[in-house]
């Protein structure tokens, strides 16, 4: 991994990242079923399908590999970038750039912390590593979700995490295209616009669920 050239590392990171971006859309689609007023029937059915379908199981491995690749390369390039300027400027940079593009490592860490919590709350319970809370079966994601979102503090942390993810994605999507060499005056503005719109959709889409459950349930 260390021996890969800077461009190879960035390209692998971009490919893994863009794959994770498409996965978010699927995840959001299933989560939004929580808003369907049927006692969680539709959501549970979808969750069961995702948990048992063989093709999905293969993709689960691809997904984990994608996370691992993106995170490891992210850490590696961030440390290399830090080492490339051992002495900082006395007067901080004031070039005209998008503010958050310089904080991809920081927003990435926050998203990673959320991911770890999310694994403890759901995936580890499902595979039996962590015991489910009393009264909830290990496969009952619906009631597990309702229980978590009944805490305003958890809901707030959840919303903040997705806000940070939205900020991360806003730079990430167009950045991934640029890294892969897909930059053309014909479509780059469209890529930037769709990337921003998508990041807003993801941040708002996921955040709507705890807000709705707190206010109307």
């Amino acid at each position, binding site marked *: 991994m260390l021996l890969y*050239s800077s*461009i190879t590392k960035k390209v692998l990171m971009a490919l893994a990242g863009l794959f994770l971006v498409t996965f978010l859309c699927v995840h959001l689609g299933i989560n939004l079923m929580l808003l369907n007023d049927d006692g969680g029937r539709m959501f549970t059915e979808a969750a069961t399908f995702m948990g048992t379908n063989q093709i999905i199981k293969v993709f689960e491995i691809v997904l984990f590999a994608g996370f691992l690749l993106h995170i490891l390369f992210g850490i590696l390039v961030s440390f290399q*970038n830090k080492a490339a300027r051992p002495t900082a400027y006395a007067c901080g*940079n004031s070039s005209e750039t998008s503010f958050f593009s*310089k904080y991809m490592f920081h927003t990435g860490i926050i998203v990673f912390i959320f991911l770890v919590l999310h694994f403890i709350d759901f995936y580890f319970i499902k595979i039996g590593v962590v015991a489910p809370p009393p009264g909830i079966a290990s496969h009952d994601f619906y009631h597990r979700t309702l229980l978590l979102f009944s805490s305003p503090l958890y809901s707030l942390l959840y919303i903040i995490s997705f806000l940070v993810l939205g900020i991360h994605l806003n730079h990430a999507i167009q950045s991934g295209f*640029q890294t892969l060499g897909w930059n053309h005056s014909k479509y780059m503005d469209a890529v930037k616009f769709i990337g921003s719109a998508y990041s807003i959709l993801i941040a708002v889409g996921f955040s709507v669920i705890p807000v709705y459950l707190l206010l109307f349930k």
Partner: protein
Amino acid sequence: MNFTLKIWRQKNATAKGQMVSYNVSEISPDSSFFEMLDTLNQKLIMSGGDPVSFDHDCREGICGTCSLYINGRPHGPVKGVTTCQLHMRSFKDGDTIHIEPWRARAFPIISDLIVDRSAFDKIIQAAGYVSVNTGGVPDANTIPVPKEKSDAAFDAATCIGCGACVAACSNAAAMLFIGAKVSHLALLPQGQVEAAKRVQKMVACMDELGFGNCSNTYACEAECPKGISVSNIARMNREFLGAKLFTEKEKIIQDSL
């Protein structure tokens, strides 16, 4: 006009440096930034002090010798100019101006505001050229070049190698410089023969010299005095991936790297 200057002073490559305050007064708003520094240096020399060393050569904005990180921006607050083309009218009377050298591991400080940018020369030496056998001069226009390609190649070739892209980049990456050099040769027929080898060698050299990785903040494009576009970085990435994935006889290239 009067200014307070806070300038990085460092005796030599190994000495410990620090920001030192100076006052300059009665500076004409029409004097250039370097004329202002010349005034300061004259004052320092007259009082038996050590003048501030800084790089400059043509003072016409075309040689790429001058540098200076002024108030958090390479080449100062005016877009699309080098420090030598910056005038004191771009500042307000009484301003405090911070002046620092380029900061990057690959650009070590020689003294005060002068850094060693020979890392760029090494990247060019690695493969930033076309090999031409000597012989008779070919007739002009015997090699057809589409107008839009020659325009794009010329835009990339306006890079003066000043290093502002590295100085501005939060990762001290040199991708805009190499992107421009790779692009200007790859766009022209004369550059095709060595294109696959060139991009791989130049990127390998860049990594070896300790520049950072690009994270597409585009600070380089915002600060480039020649307005070179980051689309050149994307073109280099395409060239690099193409060379890595589709070039014939990869082994020969690997051997020569």
